[in-house]
């Protein structure tokens, strides 16, 4: 039971971070299908820091450095989307899809190259091991493993809410996603705001990536990407109607179903059902399809999302 709670909170943190990222991007008017890829690259950035920084530096430094590295990696990678979608008015779906494929391929090539070089050719895997660093993120209360990333997610939630609704940045960002011509007509630079939206989604998506790969394991095989979690986060965002607190609730729900897949063997009645593990693995995807089918009828999506802004057409 405690294990279920722990995993629910952890996976919810991942989904919350990434979905908030998606929220910033879409609120500014750019659809970010590439979150999956951003997570992979963010995870790679964080994992490298965890692997190579000396463990002696202490937990606070390690945590800060890891998060900064993931955020930076995710942000830089999201520039690909920003440049293509905002400057070149490229199709955002194709760009995002390409980014997802590119991230997995790129991370695999990079990690394999690193492992191959380090081992002189004997280790050609795409794994990064970060056992010691991972322990620094965890504080044990009895059986419950508290993870500092849960706090990070909570802080991100509060900051997102303030950014979107309490300061002028949010007002402007949301205007760009709803009616960019209106924003432009009062002197708001739509391109700049959209860059901001996409880059913030890169930061949050990147942090989400490192949380995901450190959630249950101490090493990660980068060939596997992040198993569709970026897309689940998009479903969370849609279900949460592009609003931070609703997204948080949706993330908890989806996190719960995802956690079931990890820990169902701990529940006798579930174990007795004797269902193959595949059933539990599918659960979050099936739930999200059902939820989307029930909630998508009247879309609350930002009106101008997905439409490249062209200063000329007004």
């Amino acid at each position, binding site marked *: 039971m405690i294990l279920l709670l722990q995993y629910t909170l952890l996976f919810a943190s991942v989904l919350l971070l990434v979905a908030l990222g998606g929220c910033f991007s879409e609120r500014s008017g750019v659809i970010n299908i590439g979150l999956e890829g951003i997570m992979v690259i963010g995870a790679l950035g964080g994992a490298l820091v965890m692997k190579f920084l000396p463990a002696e530096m202490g937990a606070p430094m390690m945590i800060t450095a890891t998060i900064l590295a993931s955020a930076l990696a995710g942000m830089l990678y999201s520039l690909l989307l920003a440049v293509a979608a905002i400057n070149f008015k490229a199709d955002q779906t194709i760009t995002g899809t390409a980014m997802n494929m590119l991230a997995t391929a790129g991370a695999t090539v990079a990690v394999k190259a690193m492992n191959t070089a380090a081992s002189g050719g004997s280790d050609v895997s795409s794994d990064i091991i970060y056992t010691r660093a991972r322990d620094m993120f965890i504080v044990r209360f009895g059986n419950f493993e508290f993870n500092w990333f849960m706090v990070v997610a909570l802080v991100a939630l509060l900051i997102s809410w303030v950014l979107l609704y*309490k*300061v*002028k*940045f949010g*007002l*402007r960002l*949301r*205007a760009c996603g*709803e*009616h960019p*011509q*209106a*924003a*432009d*007509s*009062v*002197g*708001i630079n739509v391109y700049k705001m959209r860059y901001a939206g996409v880059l913030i989604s890169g930061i949050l998506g990147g942090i989400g990536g490192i949380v995901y790969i450190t959630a249950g394991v101490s090493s990660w095989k980068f060939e596997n990407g992040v198993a569709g979690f970026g897309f689940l986060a998009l479903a969370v965002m849609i279900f949460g109607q592009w609003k931070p607190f609703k997204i948080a609730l949706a993330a908890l729900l989806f996190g719960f179903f995802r956690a079931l897949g990890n820990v169902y063997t701990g529940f006798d009645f579930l174990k007795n059902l004797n269902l193959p593990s595949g059933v539990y693995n599918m659960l979050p995807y099936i739930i999200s399809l059902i939820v989307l089918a029930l909630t998508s009828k009247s879309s609350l999506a930002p*009106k101008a999302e997905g439409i490249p802004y062209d200063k000329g057409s007004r």
Partner: protein
Amino acid sequence: MEQYAVEMLHITKRFPGIIANDDITLQLKKGEIHALLGENGAGKSTLMSVLFGLYTPEEGEIRMDGQAVKIRNPNDANARGIGMVHQHFKLVECFTVLDNIIMGVEPTNKLGFLQKKHAREKVLAMSEKYGLHVNPDALISDITVGMQQRTEILKMLYRENDILIFDEPTAVLTPQEIDELMQIMKNLAAEGKSILFISHKLNEIMAVADRCSVLRKGKYIGTVEIKNTTKAELSRMMVGRDVKFAVDKEEAKPADVVMDVQHMTVASKQHDNDAVRDVSFQVRRGEIVCIAGIDGNGQSELVFGVTGLEPLKSGKITMCGQDITKAPIRKRSTSGMSHIPEDRHKHGLVLDYTLEDNMVLQRYFEPQFTNGIGFLKRGAIHAYAEKLIDQYDVRSGQGAVTVARSMSGGNQQKAIIAREIDKDPELLVAVQPTRGLDVGAIEYIHQQIVAQRDAGKAVLLVSLELDEVMNVSDRILVMYEGEIVGEFDPKKVTVEELGLYMAGAKREGVAQ
């Protein structure tokens, strides 16, 4: 020397192939209401784009208070106190009125948090002062078009703009709202604001403006004092000849009923109330029935219901004796209904298809264009399109294979009209068929519609333009808030009378 707030002197702006502004001079005095009159394509919007720094003119200069200024972009213009109410409002629907007003000049405290209290007070004070009544906390999507326009005006006032430009502001308003707007404009001018009023409605210009400058085909025709001029003179300046306000047509000879609509109710997509409520009317062979009304009173939904784009909530539609209440669109079309849609880009054309593919949009499935196993007869389609292009004088770059998107609005509309009329319908539904077109094209389209009537077709015309309503139709039905509130003979009713019905000030029990 006269004090001018803004002077645009000898402005020339060329685009490849055309001179959009040819040596145009416009001088706006302090505290006056100055009308800018011209047809579509006369160069009004280009001139305004130059004033807002969107285009750089090849020749000429702009002066403010006698000083030459450079305006590089709209921000420059805003900084110099120039504000504009665009024809299509620049408002974020899901924001409040207040958020829309402060957007771009948001008041914040030192930490960057929004401080709306003071802004709200300022807005309330301004709306009191100028009679711009609107609730600052309402969402834009919940308020009327008139209130949205006031929000746009408050946006300019909040920024303390002194030069206010109104781009065709009355197109979307009821007559009462128009009167209120006129009063607001006068109040603003009295407070020392200088107003540029872009319009092609002579009545309004005569009612509110002090002076009027006229453009025609990119050229400056002249500026006149309103008190020394007449409508006839202004319209001569605008079109370069005496405008024939009437359409030549003979007396209607209505015959048997083609379409009979009984107690039709259509739901609205925007709000919970029904957009069309319990409407009944008939259209006969050989007559043009016109649905008049201010935009947004259910005319669009009425057409959707008749043509099958939206299902009816209740009621019955009969066409040529057949019950078509639940018939799909295709069935209605093949049994003799043609539809010139309101929005030619949304419904009327597949813009990325060629002209010839668009010409057969309603008939591609007929045996003359598709063979028995589902293959298109390309040759036949091409020949048919060529025929229509020729017959209806549709002009395009590469003839039948031109992509529709690259054609001018007038020719796109001509293509739709050719397609719909050539179907030889029993009933022609034409919704705002002349919107956004120039005088020549309008005349042509009116002739075509009257010709259809004379050929014994039934015509249902929906129009927002009172001139069109009065001149083309044989019978007028006025719609207000989803109901038909009056039926008139255009020869016996005055525009003023119609206006009262359109604005909901009067209504009658409509006889069948």
